[in-house]
């Protein structure tokens, strides 16, 4: 098989390399950021004594004190708005929004203040704020605990939006996000918090920049673009397709704003086929932007219309229905068939 895994598995012999869950990898990244820069402060609900509802900040308040790791009152706008003031005072706040669906009370401060202050002040005021958001479904949760609101923020100029898919990226990217002078929405795939992987804490000149996508599997027939929780699903789909003789190139987008179109475009020029997947609803989503942009950039290379495999344009459903809402391996393979112009679920389907 030519489709070799190119997940850039880190050399396990690297000093500081260890096996961590994605959750612990973020924890170690936060710890490192707190150690490296006294201006880094963490704010959020239950992030102190409890260590966060997902334990991502476990032990950090104990080791850095309650002024650097602050349990805040239960108000998301308050968390973000306070972070704005701290940033103006020279701090680098890292805010935790406890669950994706809880971010909306803070939406105004994010899109009207955090995103715009640098522009409004003609560059005088920087907003090096990181907003961590556990996101996505697949954990059988109640309402407001499984959402994927990333497109709202990717649509907003002034914000950077990223999502990690594996422990190494989780560690590296949270440190890159905190070090970035721009505000970063950092989407953490909550159903992958317990995924384990080798994590090196060494960042160097060779470390992939935060805004770059990564080709996690090379292929020749179809480009499959994904991010966050669906990267593992996409890799599984690629493996299954390989058994059917279809070679899939999987791209972990990592950055949702800006999007590394160069990497996606280079892949599509090679494969001629594009499938995009995300848990978020389809309408006006990241997939729509990629399909449109890639079509604009290299229409003449496309051998089939781009296909999207996404959550439906419905509110996030009850837990017992989420298996129907969430993209999965079979729906990805169905879309692969579509772009391969093979028989698929829509063959013969009409309005």
């Amino acid at each position: 098989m030519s489709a070799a895994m190119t997940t850039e598995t880190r050399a396990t012999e690297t000093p500081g390399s260890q096996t961590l869950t994605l959750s612990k990898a973020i924890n170690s990244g936060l710890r490192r950021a707190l150690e490296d820069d006294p201006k880094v402060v963490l704010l959020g609900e239950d992030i102190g004594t409890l260590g966060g509802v997902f334990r991502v900040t476990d032990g950090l308040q104990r080791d850095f004190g309650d002024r650097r790791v602050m349990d805040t009152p239960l108000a998301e706008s308050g968390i973000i708005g306070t972070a704005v003031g701290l940033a103006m005072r020279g701090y680098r706040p890292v805010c935790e929004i406890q669950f994706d669906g809880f971010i909306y009370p803070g939406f105004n401060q994010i899109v009207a203040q955090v995103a715009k202050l640098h522009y409004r002040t003609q560059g005088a005021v920087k907003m090096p704020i990181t907003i961590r958001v556990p996101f996505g479904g697949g954990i059988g949760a109640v309402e407001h605990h499984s959402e994927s609101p990333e497109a709202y923020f990717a649509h907003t100029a002034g914000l950077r939006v990223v999502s990690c898919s594996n422990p190494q990226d989780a560690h590296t990217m949270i440190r890159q996000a905190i070090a970035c002078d721009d505000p970063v929405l950092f989407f953490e795939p909550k159903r992958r918090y317990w995924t384990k992987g080798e994590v090196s804490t060494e960042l160097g000149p060779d470390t992939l920049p935060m805004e770059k996508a990564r080709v996690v599997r090379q292929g020749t027939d179809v480009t499959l673009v994904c991010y966050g929780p669906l990267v593992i699903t996409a890799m599984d789909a690629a493996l299954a397709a390989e058994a059917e003789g279809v070679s899939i190139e999987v791209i972990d987008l990592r950055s949702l704003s800006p999007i590394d179109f160069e990497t996606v475009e280079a892949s599509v020029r090679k494969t001629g086929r594009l499938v995009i997947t995300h848990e978020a609803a389809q309408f006006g989503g990241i997939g729509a932007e990629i399909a449109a942009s890639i079509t604009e950039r290299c229409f003449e290379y496309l051998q089939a219309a781009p296909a999207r495999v996404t959550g439906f344009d419905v509110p996030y459903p009850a837990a017992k229905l989420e298996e129907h809402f969430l993209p999965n391996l079979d729906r990805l393979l169905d879309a692969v068939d579509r772009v391969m112009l093979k028989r698929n679920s829509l063959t013969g389907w009409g309005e």
Partner: protein
Amino acid sequence: MLRTTASEEHLETELLGLDFVQLLTPDGTRVTNPRFDPLVADIGPDELKALYEEMIVVRRIDTEATALQRQGQLGLWPPLLGQEAAQIGSARALRRDDFVFTSYRENAVAYCRGASLTQLMPVWRGTALSGWNPYDIGMATPAVIIGAQTLHATGYALGCAMDGVDSVAVAYFGDGATSQGDVNEAMVFAASFDAPVIFFCQNNQWAISEPVGLQAQRPIAERAPGFGIPSMRVDGNDVLAVMAATRVALERARSGGGPTFIEAVTYRMGPHTTSDDPSRYVDPEVQAEWAGKDPIARVEALLGSLGAMTDDFRAAVQEKADAAAAELRAGCLGLPEPEPLTVFDNVYATPNSGVERQRSQYAAYLATFGVAE
């Protein structure tokens, strides 16, 4: 250090009291007040003359800016007419290292903080989204979203405390803003963390057309103690009372006493903005009543009774005001038009491939018209 239970002790608010603080009556009578008098003991006739002059100047600026809008030179202007004492009395109590977060009507505050007259103009002429570098004058650029800045002030104050300095953050907002979640969240955060912040509410009785009675059923100052924040209610048209109250709050904040709330009771004598028509909702009798409480007239009366209101002084103040108006007008008309491609500047602090691509493509588009970059 966080409290694990809510305090049942009586608030210090009882020390500050919710009695209406007034040191100078509308007819210019200086009222003695044992608690607040010492805080303005340094304001002698000369200092009073300086405050008077500043109020005249900012009123003249306000008039000129309104005229500029009527002449089509500004897109919009939010007059502060009637609120001169509230803004100058508070802003003149501050130190350079304090930091101010305001809404959009605080042009007298900006003047006191050191914004040039020209710097007041870009936002309203539409040549830029802000007129000054916040770090140059210790004042954030105005927040248009109502109440948002109160959280910024709270966060900044928290940073001051963490830095171990005694600088204070001041949030200016109006009566309408007190209905906003952000203002209430700011008070919760400030109280929980003892942030050295002053919540300075100019209750000018109106949120565009909505009277304060739609926002609050009790005096606004009464709200703060419920958050654990001591509160004062002062005559916002009395520059001395405002200054005294601000100094009380500053002293509390600098000495680790945490946040204080000040309700400066004043009146918006003009429209909400130049786009507004208050004749649709303002009762002329009420307006006339407030005209009798003018913040400048009472200082003039006091200066007169002190024998300080000489013809020479009056002429000098007028001259200064007219010069300010001329400077404002010249500064406004002289503002450069922004270059087209600057629309892409400063969206991000770090290079961004998406914005750069659009800039490059738009430059190519403009080039087809022969427009230079």
